[in-house]
């Protein structure tokens, strides 16, 4: 017989034999699927978050420059822009104004930021705020998270208490688009004058500086030069931020997997136990097969097919369910651990994807231990003596 056809007949026989004991195999399949589902959900979710973060950072400036005072982040005097001077390879330097505002009404921090184009910052009167869609004095653009929690819509008025106790009212100009929610949920964009009066940042100071560098290979050299010219400042590279995101999400994912390892172990014990506890009927079946001429190797192969079928079904169903859980249901089981604990929780849709690295990792973490755990019991069953079971 051709080997392939032989395997096919064996597979046919195995499927029939599996279906003869539906209860027992279904319960194993259920637990197995659940294990794969949990592992796959954790992995898919963190992978998607990492990609989302990387995609968002694509547009971030290459270098952020902060001034340090007593080892802490301090305001950056505007004359640092001149002290920095012209650096070769740097296409643009700009001062940024941003900070945090604690809103006691909802018990959360907003990220307050001034957004304006470069011309406007330089004081060019030709580009006023309205033309660019940026908020003018007394206006604010808010993130979806703030809008949701405070129940605000464009046209409403948001009233906040300034640093000196005076109230400030902002007309809501618009709400930021939903697809940027991962970073903009708690964001509030206002005009620079409002920023200074609301948060008490004196004229002539910025929060930090951002630098754009055209050639990625020069970023480190530029950062070194800056550190020489402005010894009290700290350059933060986009690459570093990306790397930090990557390792933070990896770490959370790994921690979750390590926690789930207990579940996997329990499952392996169950699988071992199920495979060991052959029913009398099954033993008789194997005995009869061997008596009518099946070899030990063939019985072993049948039993491995059995495990393989269960594995593949559980792997496929579990991974599919995890995909739905993460990409369509918003991963309610893991979101709290993986994403963070903020009050203004961003809600966002992740891009569905299938990653071969992940599939292989999942395979090594689930199918391989299962197969090894059931190997010895399966072999025991296959080497049983026909006469000892049929008597």
């Amino acid at each position, binding site marked *: 017989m051709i080997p392939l056809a032989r395997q096919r007949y064996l597979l046919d026989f195995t499927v029939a034999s599996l279906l003869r004991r539906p209860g027992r195999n279904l319960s194993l399949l259920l637990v197995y699927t659940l294990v794969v589902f949990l592992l796959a959900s954790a992995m898919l979710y963190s992978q998607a978050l990492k990609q989302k973060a990387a995609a968002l950072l694509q547009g971030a400036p290459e270098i952020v420059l902060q001034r340090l005072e007593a080892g802490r982040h301090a305001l950056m005097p505007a004359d640092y822009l001149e002290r920095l001077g012209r650096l070769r390879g740097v296409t643009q330097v700009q001062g940024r104004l941003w900070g945090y505002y604690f809103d006691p009404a909802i018990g959360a921090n907003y990220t307050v930021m001034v957004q304006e184009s470069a011309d406007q910052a330089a004081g060019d009167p030709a580009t006023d705020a309205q033309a660019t869609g940026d908020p003018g004095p007394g206006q604010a653009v808010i993130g979806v998270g703030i809008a949701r929690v405070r129940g605000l819509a464009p046209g409403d008025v948001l009233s906040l208490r300034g640093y000196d106790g005076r109230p400030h009212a902002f007309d809501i100009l618009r709400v930021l688009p939903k697809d940027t929610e991962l970073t903009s949920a708690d964001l509030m964009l206002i005009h620079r004058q409002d920023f200074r009066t609301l948060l008490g940042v004196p004229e002539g100071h910025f929060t930090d500086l951002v630098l754009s560098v055209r050639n990625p290979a020069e970023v480190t050299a530029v950062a070194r030069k800056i550190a020489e010219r402005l010894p009290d400042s700290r350059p933060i590279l986009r690459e570093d931020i990306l790397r930090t995101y990557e390792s933070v999400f990896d770490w959370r994912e790994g921690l979750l997997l390590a926690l789930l390892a207990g579940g996997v172990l329990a499952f392996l014990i169950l699988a071992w136990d199920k495979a060991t506890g052959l029913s009398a009927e099954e033993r008789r079946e194997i005995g009869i097969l061997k008596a009518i001429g099946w070899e030990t190797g063939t019985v072993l192969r049948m039993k491995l097919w059995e495990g393989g079928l269960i594995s593949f079904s559980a792997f496929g169903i579990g991974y599919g369910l995890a995909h739905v859980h993460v990409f369509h249901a918003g991963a309610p089981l893991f979101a709290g651990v993986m994403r963070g604990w903020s009050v203004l929780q961003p809600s966002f849709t992740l891009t569905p994807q299938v990653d071969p690295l992940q599939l292989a990792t999942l395979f090594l973490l689930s199918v391989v*231990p299962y197969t090894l755990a059931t190997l010895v019991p399966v072999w025991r069953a296959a080497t049983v003596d026909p006469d000892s079971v049929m008597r």
Partner: protein
Amino acid sequence: MIFHPTILALLTASTLNALVLMAAALFAIGLLRRWNLADGSPGQVILERRTYLVSTAVGLVLLVQFVGLLLFVYNAERMSVLFSGAMCATGTLNVNGYGWPTLMLKMAGVFLAVLWLAVNQADNLARDYPLIRRKYALLLLMAPVFLAEAILQALYFLNLDPAVITSCCGSLFSDAGAGVASELAAWPPRPAMVVFFSVLGLTLGAAAVLWRAGRGGALFGVLSLTQFVVALAAVIAFLSLYVYEHPHHHCPFCLLKAEFDYIGYLLYGLLFAATGYGLTAAIHHHHGRLPSLSGVLPALARRHAGRALAFLLAFGLLAGGIILHSNLRLIQP
């Protein structure tokens, strides 16, 4: 670093592999001492039954080893963003001294497992277990390799320090530096191509002879291994240049990147398959002289030689295609 999921998976897999092979090696020692087919005692029957368990387990180890090798390289490629200075898998492997030895042992593990499965397949074809002693002696040889790999891999991952500034492929595989990698990179393209295509041609010839005439198994085995090494050297010396269309970028790992259509996986996959079938054919041919196997094994050896020939041919065509299709010209006609 240790909490990276793929690292967890790789550590689990290697540990399981090493444990399975250590247990199998213990069994092998007992078997080598007590095996006697003429004996009908319960001890001998138990030994015979256990051989089923061991061969199934080693089959599984091969599968895991293969997936593990792929995952190790793929993961090194992915993790390169975590290390400053790394641009591909080369940088990640360079982070500490354990990376390259782990990769070498992983590849050795794959070929050893292929070899073992070949001997096992032949052994199972005969009723009198003619190769059982060789098979288990080979297993004794494999166990330390897998154990060393598991230990080195654990050391590699435990010592991955993101603060280390590693060196990327551009500096390791440069024609100016010192060491094997640089020597290979500095190999001028014309002699390298002559050597590569000659060895490939010889190996193809030997495969054809074994396939059609059933002769020259040992020569083909030696040529298969030589071809493997020469091909890897050729990838560094000139093939990679043609893929990148860059006269000085000699990296064998950037081939695996998406920018180059993952062509490396195809190239290395064909090379590994050709070498695996080549070794299997040679070992089958060698064992075909045994009386109880002379009926079936030579035919099987020829079939495997045919498959090795097909994969080699595909590899050669792909290499040739890369050179002709590239916009880079290293040699003036």
